[in-house]
């Protein structure tokens, strides 16, 4: 094992990037992602199955749910925070910067939740604005931290998904 920064083996990380440069099959594999969400059979509870993992999606009691886990819109902002965090650690490690602490606080504001509840046709029920603030503790200057953050934001898969128009292909199938 080579030099370890932020708990990541720098050499392995570089090899991974090299692999992505030349191995088309590998790139195709990491270019596509899958999830399957199943209704738990009662109320607002759902389970998502992703590779060998699963997690619960639910609604808080004020929205009629059993509050068994975060709801879908909370997962969206959590995914953004996780993506920024992953990118930040990746980009800092690539530069040889040790990070002592990293936290991303996210706040998302829905444009008009009444549309979701069928009570309004004005605006839309998606996020209008998401604020993501990163707190970083590291022995490096602020300019470098900002540079890493800018690169992280620019190259974030989830950030780009949210900031750009994504083609969503909804389909339905009735099973009898």
């Amino acid at each position: 094992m080579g030099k370890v920064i932020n708990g990541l083996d720098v050499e392995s990380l570089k090899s991974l990037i090299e692999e992505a440069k030349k191995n088309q099959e590998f790139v195709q594999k990491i270019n596509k992602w899958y999830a399957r969400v199943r209704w738990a059979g009662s109320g607002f509870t759902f389970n998502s199955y992703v590779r060998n993992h699963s997690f619960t999606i639910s609604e808080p009691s004020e929205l009629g749910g059993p509050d068994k886990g975060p709801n879908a819109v909370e997962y969206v902002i959590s995914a953004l925070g996780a993506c920024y965090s992953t990118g930040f650690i990746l980009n800092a490690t690539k530069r040889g910067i040790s990070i002592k602490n990293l936290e991303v606080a996210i706040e998302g504001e829905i444009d008009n939740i009444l549309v979701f509840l069928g009570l309004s046709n004005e605006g839309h029920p998606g996020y209008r604005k998401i604020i993501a603030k990163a707190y970083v503790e590291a022995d490096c200057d602020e300019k470098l931290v900002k540079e890493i953050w800018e690169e992280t934001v620019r190259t974030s898969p989830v950030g780009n998904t949210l900031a750009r128009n994504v083609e969503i292909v909804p389909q339905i199938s009735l099973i009898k």
Partner: protein
Amino acid sequence: MDKIFPVTVVGSWPRPKWLLDALRRKREGKISDEEFQAIADEAVLIAIKYQEDAGVDIISDGEQRRDNFYSFVADKIEGVELKTVAEFIDFAEDKAAFEELLRKLDVPAFSIRTPIVTNFIKKKTPIALNEAKFLKEHTNKKIKVALPGPYLLTRSSWIKGISDKYYKRKEDLAEEFSKILREEIKLLRDNGVDFVQLDEPVLMEVLYGPELSVQTFMCAALTAKENPRDELRFALDILNKTVEGISGVRLGVHICRGNWSKSEDAQLKGDYYPLLPFLLDMKVNQYVLEFATKRAGSIDVFKDYPTEKEIGLGVVNPKTDEVEKPEDIINFVEKALNYFKPERIFLNPDCGFGTFAESPVNTPKVSFLKLKSISKAASILREKYH
């Protein structure tokens, strides 16, 4: 004979930047405790000078050696460690309250440190004796030392999942803190301290906390919700157990609604009324209470609860930039005279000026002017009521 309307402070004074740098370096292990104490000595001398020049009768050391009014005990008591919110949030029952707290303060979970009991506790060194001795050596004034109260220490440091391995119930831990504090109070008394004040701000959190959670002093208190009446009874019993029978020193209890930031909206709000039945049973000489801030409500709450105890009347708000006029202070004190005799009224700010080292609520200049204004009001009152 002691003069009436003595002027005193609640405790903390804004720390100079060089002291904050030294505090940080000490925390990072870059300087020894001995080196830090030498730097802090200089800061204490400045705090003494400001208070003496302002005409304060019972002075403190400005709590210059402490990072805040209670966390510092982690250095003095074995089994108590400073932990960040990030390190213990997984054990909290009400994680959402922490999230709200962090969001309001605009800080990450790794930046807020609070003392947590992570083993059986045992006193390592006296808690405030070195502070008291240095202060006593450098002033001819009477001196006051604030200590975190037993309830505050217990509520802020007992976390289910961490501390219960050593103290099954928080009540068991409270007994131990109580013994340590009792011993410390006697030690301070025997070393010439005139006034020992126990800080118990979490009492207001118990009453008024659910709506606002922007204080850092109750970080761990957020980890479990309790019934307010049971909590107040528990707080009262443990405080009384700590002070019962101790004589030869003035004992006070200080209660406030948070002193984290200058923002009035960011602190708790609510009067003393629901607290008074418990407060009046406390075996202390004096209640050191906020009254300058409107958030504390009216002093008329004492109408239904007459008492022979002393009151440390909060007459200036440490958070505001405007310096209160002596005549306004006098007007308020005269209102308090409806419920307290002149010899039982002490005059002080609502709280400290620098409760948390890194976020003082005022500058030394404004703090000094506020104390001076209290002294002026006190002189006029003494003339009138001697």
